[in-house]
């Protein structure tokens, strides 16, 4: 077989999947977004910009997504980095595998069940009742941005920990010795060697978490209780409840456009930072 043909064969399954599950649906959504809502819901072919002009009606969903997704990503990073550092650098190699498994153990239970647990913990009979005992009355946690962020960090932490762990684990420890030998105290070696060399892992982790958060709907639905909702929740509402497919499609197109824009800006930013490395991996 010619190498060319073999390459195509290797790509065929993924290509077919990509075409039927991603490209075609996107085209359908794009077409729908210029249509109109039928009298009993659904879609009526048309060509109008009406749906797009109507987008500001869902401003809150976009605002929540565009604030809580980046903030959640940053908070997850701040918590994940020290954890990954400990696992990769400080932990006894004998226990490392064990500790890594502990990081993913929560994933063995459905996110739905775990979210119910958080509803209970943050709900009236959870933490607020404990706070009431020490005199802090009427603290509301559930159905607030705080609750949603808590759920986000809890759910997405492993996704952030792993890429960072991998890049830290791969780091050549002799570079730190070289740094010390050249007169750099440990904390400065961290800033000048460890941190820059772990940027690819950080970039990968942030990207993964951010993209998934932009499409998130379960956590805000469970812990935001209709008060803190994402674009994902708006889509569920538009497609399944009010059956306004045309408007839902326009919202979906807007979300995809925003995602493409932010991600490409972010990639450019990260590349500027880490073009020093030949093996930068942004996935």
């Amino acid at each position, binding site marked *: 077989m010619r190498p060319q043909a073999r390459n195509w064969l290797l790509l065929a399954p993924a290509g077919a999947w990509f075409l039927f599950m991603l490209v075609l649906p996107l085209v359908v959504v794009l077409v729908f977004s210029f249509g109109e809502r039928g009298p009993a819901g659904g879609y009526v072919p048309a060509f109008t910009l009406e749906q797009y002009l109507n987008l500001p009606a869902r401003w809150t969903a976009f605002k929540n997504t565009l604030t809580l997704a980046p903030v959640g990503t940053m908070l997850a990073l701040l918590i994940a980095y020290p954890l990954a550092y400990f696992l990769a650098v400080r932990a006894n190699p004998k226990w490392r595998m064990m500790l890594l498994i502990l990081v993913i153990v929560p994933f063995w239970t459905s996110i739905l069940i775990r979210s119910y647990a958080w509803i209970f913990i943050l709900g009236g009979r959870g933490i607020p009742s404990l706070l009431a005992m020490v005199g802090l009355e009427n603290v509301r946690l559930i159905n607030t941005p705080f609750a949603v962020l808590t759920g986000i960090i809890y759910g997405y932490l492993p996704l952030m920990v792993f890429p960072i762990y991998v890049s830290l684990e791969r780091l050549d420890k*002799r570079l730190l010795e*070289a740094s010390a030998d050249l007169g750099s*105290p440990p904390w*400065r070696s961290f800033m000048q060697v460890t941190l820059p060399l772990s940027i690819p892992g950080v970039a990968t982790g942030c990207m993964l978490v951010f993209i998934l958060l932009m499409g998130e709907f379960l956590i805000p639905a469970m812990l935001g209780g209709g008060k803190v909702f994402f674009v994902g929740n708006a889509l569920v509402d538009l497609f399944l409840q009010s059956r306004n497919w045309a408007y839902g499609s326009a919202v979906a197109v807007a979300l995809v456009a925003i995602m493409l824009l932010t991600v490409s800006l972010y990639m450019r930013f990260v590349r500027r930072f*880490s073009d020093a490395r030949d093996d930068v991996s942004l996935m």
Partner: protein
Amino acid sequence: MRQTKQNPGQLNSMGYAPIPGSIAEFRGATKLFGEVVAADHIDLAIFKGEFLSFLGPSGCGKTTALRMLAGFETPSRGDVLIDGDRVNDMPPHRRPVNMVFQHYALFPHLNVFDNIAYGLRQRRPRPGASEIATKVERTLETVRLPGYGKRRIWEMSGGQQQRVALARALVNEPKLLLLDEPMAALDRKLRREMQIELQTLQRQLGITFVLVTHDQEEALSMSDRICLMRGGRIVQIGSPRSLYDEPASRYVADFVGKSNFFEGRLSGRSAGIGSVETRSGMLLSGRTVGDFAEGQTVAVSIRPEQCLLSQSEPGEAAAGATRIKVRIRNRIFLGEHTEYLVESGGMGEFLVHVSRQADAMSGAFEAGEEAWASWPREAAIVLENDATSEPPKKGNEHVEEK
């Protein structure tokens, strides 16, 4: 020649009396890794401006000794002194020494310039940008890489990376430059070039170099002094010449250069000359090195290039010269000389190196031919017959039995 055993000088403020002229010292320095004794009671003074090599087989503790100087290992017992101060507990970043790492350990996220400037930028107060640039450029010239500052590390060849690593250490003007097998990753020709460059550089800059190597040729050609190690201990310290010509034991003679060994019993000795009776009853005589009891098993060492081969029996030579009839077993052309493997009834097989000139004059010998091998008495050295292959775990006192 400098001696290692010197009278300690004045006590310094910390109560240590550094050996005059020394820049660093090991004092009974021992390093244990669990059960493994990586360095065993090392006593050594390193003098200002000298080129010292740690030489020895793999695992003998060379790197450990170097890392104790750099500060990456703390001695389990004993002391390490730099510039007269006990530095056992001084972290690496405070020590006035720099190291060239075995695989260079260059920073992949920094370009050549920033790699070299790294050490200068750690100084407090931090030198100005122009001062740093001047020093880096000058060092790049010293290692013959002018204008390479903007290059990425992975755009440099192995030999160039080696120079960058050297420059990164040299730019700090350390009191002591430590090199851990810096040339191990280079091919033979490049290694030879770098050896010469390194040696020239050391003379030029006057910085004390401490080199770790397991390549005896490298140690012989570059060092002022060689410190030969075995199983964590120092076996012999001295100039390359003294290690080669006056080895302290069979182990040294075997590790430094090639040599033939004939085992036997010391049957008599007088005025630095020992007579040795080999197992087959042959009598050999040679210089004695060390103190031996009569009857003790010893080894007589004869360097292959100190043997002569001739077609006819050599005439009456100086007293004590050895002449034996041999049969040529094998001949290998090695460029600068020809190596003959010869066999004699009484002494078994041994090697003779014949220079090209001598080979041309006497005519090359063919395998199977008979010839005479001879050597002057001074060429034979009677040595302690210590084990040659693996270092013994405890002590050096055991005698090889074949």
